[in-house]
């Protein structure tokens, strides 16, 4: 069986959903003739035609807001924002229309749609092609926010997003696109939204992460194992609504938790996860809830030493886990 890359898994999910349901269509910049800057939509224009694979003008407001409108009249839009860095013009439409449509209309009108957003650093992308800003969407109830770390989850979650009745922001970490490969089942499958995955079972400390940082955490876990520390690694996969149960059960078991995210620390996803653990599980904890995050600076800087300095990695995570164990 041919190993499937993360990006191939994304392409397969879209192609299969478009085959399955004629209401699914794609819109975004460079997705048609060019097949996407990362080739996520390669071949789909030829297969499905220009009304289902729409090359959009440089109009992130319209790509988001227009998709909301199409969703309201029965379509299943899958919009692409080429880089998370360029999603800011869409924010008005995402926050005011997409996230609130069901709420503000008493569910008369809804916005079942997916916005795929390519994000993340560790690719030498520079200040404006490396950003990861899931925390902006995380603080908006009404949105589903996904950030998978494996081809299997990417394909299964994207299918769940397209089939579901809620608006989804689907982050794809570009560092994973061609790095991570795995065998995928031949048959149709989905991955449920709202459930975290336990990647390694352990008893000493819980590490919670997602996206590229799930892989960096895994590298740390392997090293810590050699040092005699047994880590339970949880990959959140769904950022909003996040899986409290799985995380809480693990923390109750290990009594120690390290939270790892790539984006800046202040106001991030792990700030909320950490606060919830502190609020609900105080009696179980043997050490302070501790985070390893990107730096609190405006974005990921370009020069390689600065970029690496910004990003959490296995070494940083390992050092923090040891501190938490020594507490």
């Amino acid at each position, binding site marked *: 069986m041919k190993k499937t890359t993360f990006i191939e898994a994304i392409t397969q999910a879209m192609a299969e959903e478009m085959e399955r349901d004629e209401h699914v269509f794609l819109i975004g910049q460079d997705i048609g003739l060019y097949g996407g800057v990362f080739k996520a939509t390669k071949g789909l224009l030829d297969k499905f035609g220009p009304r289902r694979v729409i090359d959009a003008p440089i109009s992130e407001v319209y790509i988001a807001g227009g998709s909301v409108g199409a969703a309201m*009249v029965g379509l299943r839009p899958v919009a692409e924002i080429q880089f998370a860095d360029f999603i800011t013009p869409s924010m008005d439409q995402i926050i005011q229309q997409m996230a609130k449509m069901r709420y503000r209309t*008493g569910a008369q009108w809804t916005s079942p749609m997916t916005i795929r957003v390519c994000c993340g650093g560790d690719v030498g992308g520079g200040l404006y092609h490396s950003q990861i800003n899931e925390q902006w969407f995380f603080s908006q109830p*009404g949105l589903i926010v996904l950030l998978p770390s494996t081809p299997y989850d990417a394909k299964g979650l994207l299918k769940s997003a397209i089939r579901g009745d809620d608006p989804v922001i689907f982050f794809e970490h570009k560092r994973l696109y061609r790095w991570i490969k795995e065998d995928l089942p031949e048959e149709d499958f989905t991955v449920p939204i709202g459930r975290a995955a336990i990647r390694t079972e352990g008893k000493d400390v819980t590490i919670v992460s997602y996206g590229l940082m799930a892989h960096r955490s895994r590298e740390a876990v392997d090293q810590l194992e050699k040092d005699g520390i047994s880590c339970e690694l949880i990959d959140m996969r769904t950022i909003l609504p996040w899986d409290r149960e799985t995380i809480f059960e693990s923390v109750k078991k290990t009594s120690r938790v390290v939270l790892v995210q790539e984006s800046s620390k202040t106001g991030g996803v792990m700030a909320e996860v950490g606060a919830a653990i502190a609020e609900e599980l105080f009696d179980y904890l043997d050490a302070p809830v501790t985070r390893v995050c990107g730096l609190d600076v405006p974005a990921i800087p370009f020069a390689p030493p600065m970029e690496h300095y910004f990003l959490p990695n296995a070494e940083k995570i390992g050092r923090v886990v040891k501190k938490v164990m020594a507490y």
Partner: protein
Amino acid sequence: MPAKTKSKTAVSKPTLKNIGLSEETLMGLYTNLLKTRTLDERFRKLFRQGRFAGTYFSAVGQEATTVGPTYGTREEDIIAPSHREIGAAVTKGIPLVHIVAQVYARINSPDKGKTHPCHYGWRAKGVISPSSTLAGQTIVGTGCAMGFWIQKKDNVVLAFFGEGATSRGGWHEALNFAGIHKLPIVYICQNNLWAESVPATMQAGIKHFADRAKAYGFPGVTIDGNDIVLVHQTAAEAIARARAGEGPTLIECKTYRWYGHSEIDPADYRTQDEIDEWRRKDPLDRADRLLQDLGILTTEKREAIVVEVNQEIDAAIDACEKEKYAEPEEAYIDVYSEQFPVRRDEY
């Protein structure tokens, strides 16, 4: 195609034939204008009496710009309104009780009381409940038109907004996209000269907002927005073109709102002369005189319509004043589909 300015020269002796509309259509337009005006003025009174919370956005003076285009649209056509489209809500056929309930924020409001007065919406009649972000529904409405285009359906979208909203970037992105694909949509700009307190001359460096259409490759036309017949006919032509796949039209209706931006705005940035001048151009009064000249409206007939409209409005208000607010826990409903119930905090 160049933008053009239309103005209908007064015909000395109007007849149904030279107007080109049936008696039924003219009476329909008139009745909806009258109903909209009556309901709107009633809402203003009720607000002053403290009968509902928040504020109220009156559209008195500019009703022809919403009633005219909406009258005669199909049930499956979409209305993409802003906050002053009570005329579109009434004409498209949202039951009055739900319109009143929306303003009163009662449980029988389509939104269960979650938004704000004047955000009328009703899925069954294709009216999108608006957001307060200006040009919001222009963008979303263009998306609805894209949806019809993808599915090759011949439904049409009417998108309403004020001249102020045309300054927003997203408005331009939407019209640009609609021009590329000749989407089935008609853009109706209600140029009432004031965006809250900012005059139209401070909104754009062009005189006619319809000129903006030039940039997007479809026709733009500026018309007298207080002439219900002209507004209806111009929109009907544009709707027919949109339905036939010939693309969008931008119709700028010159009009005026008699009162403040909302009921808490004294609107003292305008001169009395300006207000008086526009009151003389009252669209309802003009329609009334036209129909009388045509011999299809008599004093008795008008009185009968007024009585009927008031009875309908009274009944709707009575029903809503007796209605409850939703339970406060309703705040937790309709965040997501039933698949994702929201975790509730108890304090």
